[in-house]
């Protein structure tokens, strides 16, 4: 078992299989970097020292003819050096140098360097590159090669350590971002839950009580008629009943809708249709919702919040068209743009509200639109007001849909 494998255990929060796969990949990556870096350095030394020994560095200057006479030794020298490199790399891989702690790694480097240097010199003697060399020549050969191996493996280990630190830093950053994003998503989900609960309470409990109160007033009215109460008293009761009816039918519904628009838990298509149906019958309004828009938003964890953002934008457009533009015709269209086939780029869900009203005022009142813009901005979206081909205004709202995972 490797030193690192002994030192780490999968945490309870993370699947064992995922950790193992990641660790195996990391180890393979580290080993590749170590062997590649050490291999490049050692091979460069091997080739360089071979050429230098034969052509450049000599104890004393020799004639060109003698140099050429030495050249036949070139393959033997080169082979010796390359075999040395291979043995050093094999040993480094065998002892899993990159997985060891610094002190153990230093010891392992020395334990590799000295035997490999000795083996190289032995090979040189065997091949006749040196014939009965003096002790100091052998010592220089062995020591210099050992130093080269120590330096090469040391640099390669340093490279691996730097990469490991960088990788850990990147992963910590990614985990931090993930935690922040999860916390935000949980917060948004909690907000949605509370909104829905309050809206349900308004729809269910409060409306139910108002219905019962209306029924009670009906009973009192009937008794009043039977017992001949005064017209004024009966009219007062009728007025009270109308107020309750209005509260139930209009005020409670509007309040509930502000918290949690009708239909957003079903689909964007349904929520937009529900919104459009509330517009008075005198207004010619149609809505076209591309099914792809719902599919695009449904990929994320906060589809309901995204739908609410789009519905609020469309609602703002319709309200402005009626309140400020005196429009009689409104066209709502919701579609998807952008994104790519493999899902790497995020598509954008775009809703447009066009009307035939008086058009853009000289200084548009941006109070509502500013709020809409701010809300959409938090979701990577935007809002834009422009003239419409229908003669009035065109409001475009856009949110970024989640990228396909």
């Amino acid at each position, binding site marked *: 078992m490797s030193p690192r494998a002994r030192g780490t255990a999968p945490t309870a929060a993370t699947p064992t299989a995922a950790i193992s796969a990641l660790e195996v990949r990391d180890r393979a990556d580290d080993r590749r970097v170590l062997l590649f870096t050490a291999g490049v350095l050692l091979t460069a030394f091997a080739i360089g020292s071979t050429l230098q020994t034969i052509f450049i560095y000599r104890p004393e200057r020799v004639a060109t003819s003698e140099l050429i006479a030495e050249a036949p030794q070139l393959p033997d020298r080169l082979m010796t050096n390359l075999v040395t490199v291979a043995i050093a790399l094999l040993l480094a891989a065998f002892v899993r140098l990159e997985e060891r702690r610094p002190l153990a790694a230093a010891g392992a480097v020395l334990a590799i360097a000295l035997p490999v240097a000795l083996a190289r010199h032995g090979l040189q003697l065997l091949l006749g590159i040196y014939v009965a060399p003096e002790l100091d020549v052998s010592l220089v050969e062995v020591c210099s090669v050992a130093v080269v191996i120590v330096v090469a493996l040391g640099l390669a280990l340093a490279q691996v350590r730097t990469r490991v630190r960088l990788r850990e830093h990147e992963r910590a950053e990614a985990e931090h971002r993930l935690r922040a994003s999860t916390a935000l998503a949980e917060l948004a989900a909690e907000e949605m839950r509370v909104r829905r609960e309050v809206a349900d309470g308004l729809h269910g409990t409060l409306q*139910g009580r108002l219905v019962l109160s209306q029924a009670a007033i009906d009973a009192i009215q009937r008794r009043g008629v039977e017992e001949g109460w005064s017209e004024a008293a009966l009219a007062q009761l009728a007025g009270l009943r109308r107020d309750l009816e209005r509260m139930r039918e209009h005020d409670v519904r509007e309040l509930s809708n502000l918290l949690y628009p009708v239909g957003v*838990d*079903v689909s964007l298509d349904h929520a937009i249709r529900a919104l459009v149906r509330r517009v008075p*019958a005198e207004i010619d309004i149609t809505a076209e919702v591309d099914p792809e828009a719902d599919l695009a938003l449904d990929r994320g964890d906060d589809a309901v919040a995204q739908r609410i953002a789009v519905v609020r934008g469309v609602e703002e457009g319709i309200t402005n068209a009626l309140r400020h533009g005196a429009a009689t015709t409104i066209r709502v269209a919701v579609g998807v743009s952008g994104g790519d086939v493999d899902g790497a780029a995020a598509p954008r869900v775009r809703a447009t509200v066009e009307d035939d009203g008086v058009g853009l005022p000289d200084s548009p009142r941006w109070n509502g639109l500013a709020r809409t813009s701010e809300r959409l901005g938090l979701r990577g979206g935007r809002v834009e007001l422009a003239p419409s081909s229908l003669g009035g205004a065109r409001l475009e709202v856009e949110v970024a849909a989640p990228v396909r995972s």
Partner: protein
Amino acid sequence: MSAEPAIRVVLLEDQALFRSLLSDLVRSEPGFELVAAAGTIAEARALAANAEADVMLLDIELPDGNGFQLGRELRRARPGLGVVLLSSHDMMELLLALPDRERAGWSYLSKVSSTSRETLLRALRVSARGASMLDPELLARLRPRRGSALAGLTPRQLHALRLLAEGLSNAAIARDMGISNHSVDNLLNAVYSTLGVRDDGDLNSRVAAALHLVRDGAPGGAGA
């Protein structure tokens, strides 16, 4: 005594008192059998999996989800199952979210309109046999939207369409309007023609015409 088998009903309603009242109503009515009553989506899903039912009476907004979505899910497993949606407010446009081939057998009633015991039982019967019925009071409040095909109907045609959407047969429409069955046929054919609906196999023309009323009718009118 009728030889017809009883209509088996599964009920889903989160308010305990209302659930109990509805359960008693279905149980006490000859020709109906309450096979299960649930208060949550999860409970209803589990009960419906083991109960043989003809129609489901579903509240829409529930603590753990949406009754409409549950209805769609159960209908995918049993296409012949009728669904009556019961909600505290007008959400009839939910039915527009259904694909054409799934629209038959869905009915919609409001809890806060003057829905009577008879209306509820009629909706259960209508949905159990694969037809549709919409809340008469909500329908009466709908006004044709300007610019829509619905606005092209005459008041008489619109009245006939409302009755059709209430789940009435042609004979019942004829009785209500005081005209012959043949005249009702002609009237409804004119309605279909104006709305541009036809029986295309996936979507019955009666259901399609009723949904036009939902799509192009704006709620909030004084009533008819």
